[in-house]
């Protein structure tokens, strides 16, 4: 478990929690006082028996795509999602709300959900076959038109012009007939309208795409390696990127698009439905277009310095950090001069696909794609949360250490990250959402299991520390922090912070107070 430092304000008073309504019976033995005095920072005393080892949590809630373990709360959420999906007309708002906390993918519904979220499939189930048919045939026509090489094109032109072909092996001796070339097309043509010339000009882009595709996720069997499977997947990725580059002369292909495409393709390729797998390329292509349409300004070089370009997005991130954690922002920007461009560029343009394990990346994308605020806003919030979660290390580090840390972001608990990101919402949205939703049971439960499941051995020490805390709050809190790392149980949005803790450590809690308005 990571024993990371916790941001003070996040760790305060959050040990009191609402009991999770879907708790398994085993926790019934550990009574949680819903309104236990917030002053008591230690968790409710670890009563016997601590959960048996079999409830040891997986590293991340989504686990590896192969065999995830699900809590009952997740199973209930999954069934809610399934019921929503099976309706005739799907309520996208409701689906977004459910998916926002992640998709527990036991039923392998992620491909369908992503297609709905990216508006590839219409809300009304009845229209699905028709839409799919239309889009897939459209992709096929794109492919036929754009993926030809000039030889084929000239052959087609010849056939229409009825040019004679001589056959090599037949029994005749003759001077071979010369014929006129059609439309002035020859391979060395330098004309701008020449098919050949265009082909050679695009050859560079195609070469670039090929190189990048070969380098996508070299650690995954799905993408890399010599197997036939990996090669067909690479070919599909290549074709999708080439069609995209040819259809979008404005941005063509930019390095990094392959990384954005890879998770999409992976998810859609692992669709349990055979029919969808057969047309995975077409589906991925359109979803890729849709996903990129929100972010395409990040890839356009000309827009770099404009209001919509990547620089302004990075500035937005910087301002967001300043709003939520001024001390950290000041330390990063002013004291250590770590320019956000150094780390945030990759985070934002690649939608965090390079920062985490692949499975974690899929869960982050669940949130990014489903959040009602929009993908870019959500992405910025998650990036800000990433910074805040490692704030202790950042505050202690200089330029080199910080840069190194941010460019190789340490493995972290994704559930926790998304929880913090969610907390960073603007006040109106958070009120709106809190009015619409149950508390974040998932996170709370997960944290409990982690805290107690792993540390049950230290229950005695914890009890001792709690005792110490009563006598000398500061020291107890500090040691406590260090031991238990970044875990803290659920805090309901509705309870408020005690005024006492605000002043006790002298740390600025105003941002937290704001969250609780």
């Amino acid at each position, binding site marked *: 478990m990571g024993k990371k430092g916790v941001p003070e304000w996040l760790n305060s008073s959050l040990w009191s929690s609402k009991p999770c309504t879907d708790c398994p019976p085993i926790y019934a033995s550990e009574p949680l006082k819903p309104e236990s005095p917030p002053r008591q920072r230690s968790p409710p005393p670890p009563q016997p028996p601590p959960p048996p080892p079999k409830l040891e949590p997986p590293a991340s809630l989504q686990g590896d795509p192969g065999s995830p373990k699900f809590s009952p709360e997740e199973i209930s959420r999954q069934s809610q999602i399934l019921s929503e999906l099976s309706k005739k007309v799907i309520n996208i708002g409701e689906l977004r709300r459910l998916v926002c906390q992640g998709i527990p993918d036991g039923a392998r519904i992620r491909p369908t959900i992503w297609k709905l979220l990216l508006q590839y499939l219409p809300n009304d189930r009845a229209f699905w076959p028709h839409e799919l048919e239309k889009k897939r045939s459209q992709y096929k026509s794109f492919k036929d038109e754009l993926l030809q090489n000039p030889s084929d094109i000239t052959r087609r032109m010849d056939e229409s012009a009825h*040019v004679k072909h*001589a*056959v090599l092996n037949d029994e005749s001796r003759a001077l*071979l007939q*010369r014929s006129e070339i059609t439309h002035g097309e020859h*391979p*060395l043509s*330098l004309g701008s309208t020449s098919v050949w010339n265009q082909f050679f000009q695009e050859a560079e882009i195609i070469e670039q795409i090929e190189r990048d595709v070969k380098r996508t996720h070299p650690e995954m069997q799905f993408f890399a390696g010599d197997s036939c499977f990996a090669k067909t997947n690479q070919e599909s990725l290549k074709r999708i990127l080439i069609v995209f580059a040819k259809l979008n002369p404005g941005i063509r292909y930019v390095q990094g698009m392959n990384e954005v495409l890879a998770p999409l393709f992976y998810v859609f390729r692992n669709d349990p439905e055979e029919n969808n797998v057969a047309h995975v390329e077409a589906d991925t292509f359109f979803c890729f277009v849709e996903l990129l349409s929100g972010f395409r300004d990040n890839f356009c070089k000309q827009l770099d310095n404009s209001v919509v370009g990547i620089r302004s997005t990075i500035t937005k991130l910087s301002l967001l950090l300043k709003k939520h954690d001024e001390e950290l922002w000041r330390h990063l920007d002013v004291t250590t001069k770590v320019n956000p461009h150094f780390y945030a560029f990759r985070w934002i343009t690649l939608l965090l696909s390079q920062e985490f394990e692949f499975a974690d990346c899929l869960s982050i994308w669940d949130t990014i794609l489903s959040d009602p605020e929009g993908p870019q806003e959500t992405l910025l919030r998650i990036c800000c949360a990433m910074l805040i979660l490692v704030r202790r290390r950042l505050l202690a580090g200089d330029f080199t250490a910080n840069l190194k840390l941010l460019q190789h972001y340490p493995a972290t608990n994704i559930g926790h990250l998304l929880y913090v990101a969610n907390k960073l919402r603007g006040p109106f949205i958070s009120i709106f959402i809190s009015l619409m939703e149950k508390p974040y049971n998932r996170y709370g439960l997960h944290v409990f299991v982690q805290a107690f499941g792993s540390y049950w051995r230290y229950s005695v020490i914890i009890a001792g520390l709690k005792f110490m805390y009563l006598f000398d709050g500061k020291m107890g809190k500090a040691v406590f922090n260090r031991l238990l790392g970044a875990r803290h149980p659920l805090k309901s949005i509705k309870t408020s912070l005690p005024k006492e803790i605000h002043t006790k450590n002298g740390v600025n809690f105003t941002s937290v107070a704001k969250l609780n308005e």
Partner: protein
Amino acid sequence: MVLVLALGDLHIPHRAADLPSKFKSMLVPGKIQHILCTGNLCIKEIHDYLKSLCPDLHVSRGEYDEDARYSETKTLTIGQFKLGLCHGHQVVPWGDLDSLAMLQRQLDVDILVTGHTHQFKAYKHEGGVVINPGSATGAYSSITYDVNPSFVLMDIDGLRVVVYVYELIDGEVKVDKIDFKKTAPTQSAP
């Protein structure tokens, strides 16, 4: 879709100064995959220039070549076709179809590229096709002074070959093409 350039009989610097500028502007690196040069370059500088156009360069020995290390004949396989290369001064009578057909059967190739006559020709006979790209610089030959600069570009695509003939006639580049295909695929060599 493999592009193969066939040219030869440049005779630089003895009989011609350089390739025609119009040809030079068309021949840029990066487009051509193979070059077959029939011979008589004659100097190393031309060899280097051709090498810059395409790293896969094959040259056969012409009687005026200053580099004695080129071989008399060469064969290579590109896609489904076997190509043979020879300068042609060894084959007597020069440019005679029957003798060239004999050479082709000897080399066992589908397409034989020879030069020496400085005249573009493309013959077809039972065994295959003989292509003479002519002289790329328009240098005079042992037989005639009336030579148009020409070279040949072959587009090999599966079982089909499109031969583009580039000739410089009265200062203008004229492009023609010849289309032919094979019926049976080549057996892969054991």
